[in-house]
């Protein structure tokens, strides 16, 4: 044991590895131990993309990928909220209804009542947040299982949605309104997209570097600068390629940028704030969280409200993209898709495990399957079967990795 070792590297059982070589060995080691984060999901995604591209050469075309990004935004935002409720070990079955309701409210206020669009959006989101608050009260006070509360909500707010839409049943949002424009036609200029890519990579490097310096000062082990550089350059390469490829046709949609921005914000909130910690703690062991002095009720309240609010935003984006709010908005498989996106992205239904990026990845998996099969001219019966099978395939890769994790004793 030499004295130059970092504080967190002194245990002699640790196989210590330094530098780039060490990092690579580390990754291999972690792969064997099944501790790979989102990599298996990404691998699953790549597999599906390859299959779908073989089946239909249009699939990976720039146009189609642009569509894919735009179509994943609405439900993806909803999935982001679902990740939060799943993290605390609860569920929200009503996100579909709430999204439909908020679309309806938006349309009525904006089109029928002539309110400015921001006011209509605000009202819709506020209403949904209030719904989440009511859920939380029922949950905290009476201990009704969230499954039942939100099932009741699913029915009740579907009713309310029908009621709000009233005799018309369907309300068009004007195509030339800013909102519809944003969802359908607003794309980031190519130069700005490249700027975003550079900023992101530079940001990653800078924050990593500062963090590493701070750790080294405190006598802890830290990532080497070369490691950080490699990471940032890899990110830059990926982002530049994506921007360039999408830029072949229409480019990166602002709606997708909004979705990604929300994912980043949620990622920050979940992983770098006290609130995020308490969310994971409540999901892992609510009694332990309570004993640690966390206000468990407040955590549940915040999470339910957040989830409903995300559902509202998702509903508004969906309405904007369709340029209409109607009775079937938010019905069908919005609920299942949102939950499935979260679960495919690695969020546990039992709470305490999951990330915001998981929602993004899971949503892209689901949307890829849906878009890929849409391009094939199949009978409905076959389409359903194939969708099921492909969905399963996408997840098996991830599950095998996770399985090896448990067999290696990681919870």
């Amino acid at each position, binding site marked *: 044991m030499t004295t130059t070792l970092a504080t967190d590297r002194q245990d002699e059982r640790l196989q210590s590895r330094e530098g780039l070589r060490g990092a690579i060995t580390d990754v291999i080691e972690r792969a064997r131990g099944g501790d790979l984060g989102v990599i298996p999901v990404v691998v699953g995604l790549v597999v599906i993309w390859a299959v779908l591209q073989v089946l*239909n050469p*249009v699939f990976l*075309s720039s*146009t*189609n990928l642009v*569509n894919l990004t*735009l*179509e994943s935004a609405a439900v993806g935002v909803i999935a982001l909220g679902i990740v939060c409720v799943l993290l605390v070990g609860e569920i929200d079955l009503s996100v579909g209804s709430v999204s439909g309701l908020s679309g309806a409210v938006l349309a009525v206020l904006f*089109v*029928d009542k*002539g309110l400015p669009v921001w006011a209509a959006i605000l009202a819709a989101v506020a209403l949904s947040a209030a719904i989440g608050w009511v859920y939380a009260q029922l949950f905290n006070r009476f201990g009704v299982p969230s499954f039942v509360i939100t099932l009741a909500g699913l029915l009740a707010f579907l009713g309310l949605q*029908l009621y709000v839409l009233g*005799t*018309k*049943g*369907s*309300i*068009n949002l*004007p*195509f*030339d309104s800013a909102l519809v424009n944003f*969802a*359908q*036609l607003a794309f980031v200029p190519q130069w700005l997209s490249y700027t975003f890519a550079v900023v992101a990579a530079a940001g990653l490097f800078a924050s990593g570097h500062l963090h590493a310096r701070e750790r080294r000062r405190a006598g802890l082990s830290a990532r080497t600068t070369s490691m950080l550089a490699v990471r940032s350059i890899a990110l830059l390469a990926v982002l530049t390629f994506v921007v360039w490829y999408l830029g072949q046709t*229409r480019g990166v949609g602002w709606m997708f940028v909004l979705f990604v921005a929300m994912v980043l914000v949620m990622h920050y909130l979940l992983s770098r704030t006290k609130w995020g910690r308490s969310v994971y703690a409540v999901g892992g062991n609510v009694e332990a969280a309570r004993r640690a002095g966390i206000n468990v009720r407040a955590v549940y309240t915040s999470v339910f409200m957040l989830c409903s609010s995300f559902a509202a935003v998702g509903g508004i984006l*969906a309405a904007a*993209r*369709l*340029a*209409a709010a*109607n*009775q*079937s*908005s938010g*019905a*069908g*498989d919005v609920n299942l898709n949102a939950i499935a996106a979260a679960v495919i992205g690695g969020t546990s239904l039992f709470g305490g495990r999951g990330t915001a990026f998981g929602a993004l990845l899971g949503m892209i998996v689901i949307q890829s399957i*849906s*878009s890929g099969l*849409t*391009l094939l*001219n199949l009978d*409905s*019966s076959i389409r359903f079967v194939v969708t099921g099978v492909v969905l399963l395939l996408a997840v098996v890769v991830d599950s095998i990795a996770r399985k090896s994790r448990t067999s290696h004793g990681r919870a």
Partner: protein
Amino acid sequence: SGSTGADGGTGGSGGGSAENAKVAFLMPDLASTRYELADKPLFEAKMKQLCPSCTVIYQNADSDASKQQQQANSALAQGVKAIVIDPVDSAAAATIVKSAQAQNVPVIAYDRPIPTTPADYYVSFDNEKIGSMIGQSLVDHLKKENAEGGILQVNGSPTDAAAGLIKKGIHSAVDPSGFKLLAEYDTPDWSPEKAQGWVSGQITKFRDQIAGVVAANDGTGGGSIAAFKAADVKVPPVTGNDAESAAAQRIISGDQYNTISKPIKTVAEAAADVAYRFVRGEKPAGKTTLYDTPSELFTPTVVTRENINEVLFQSGIMKASEVCTGEYAKGCAELGIK
């Protein structure tokens, strides 16, 4: 009990006492807005007019055949004197007819027929015809414009029998038209979002080859239009069905080519009339016979920019004040809609 023949026990009950009678009005789904918004109030109003003391028991089965069966049973438990039913599943509704007739309650098939077990009466316009009409109208339009390319077909829900009939009708118009059927899609749950997603994909695939889109209802039609708009591509002629006010707006603004207006008022009132006569113990005779059932059929009207004013506004089905809002006011003015 046991199965009774089609004409076995019908017509005999009640003996003319229509006072305080209950009539069940069982509708199939919420996917189309017409049942809640048109059929129900129109039927109720006519019934009220014919028989002020009667009550109408309205139920909507939300696309679930067994739920509809349950609703019929509970209507029977409440002692209704007649059942007007728009079956979710034409085949499965046979059970309802059986058990109603076993209790001497006449059944009036509404909108969709019940082929296997004849009901006591059938009032409708038929869905297959609707499909062929919107399809034909689009094909004619395309021919007139000398359009090139093929047609996309957006059907209704794969689990909805009515959608199946419409689909059949559309095929009967599109298949022999000479326009190639590029692709077709059964939209799960009639979801406009799904329709939009599918059409977006087809735009990627076919781009300029799309001459027109036959959509089975206004919701999926709206979704298809949004897909073209979002792809920043010129919107080809798109059909619809149901004459929703949102569709009327799109037709006025020129985004949608046609929709179809069903004479719901006429049909609903005819149904109320027949039901009332059954309640009074009469046994009305049909204008024709379809599926062994005395029947009365009405024809719907295809609505385009040319005739929208006349069919929807001048007839009083829609009010200009509700449709001609905001950006649509200009189009209304052009078409002389007041």
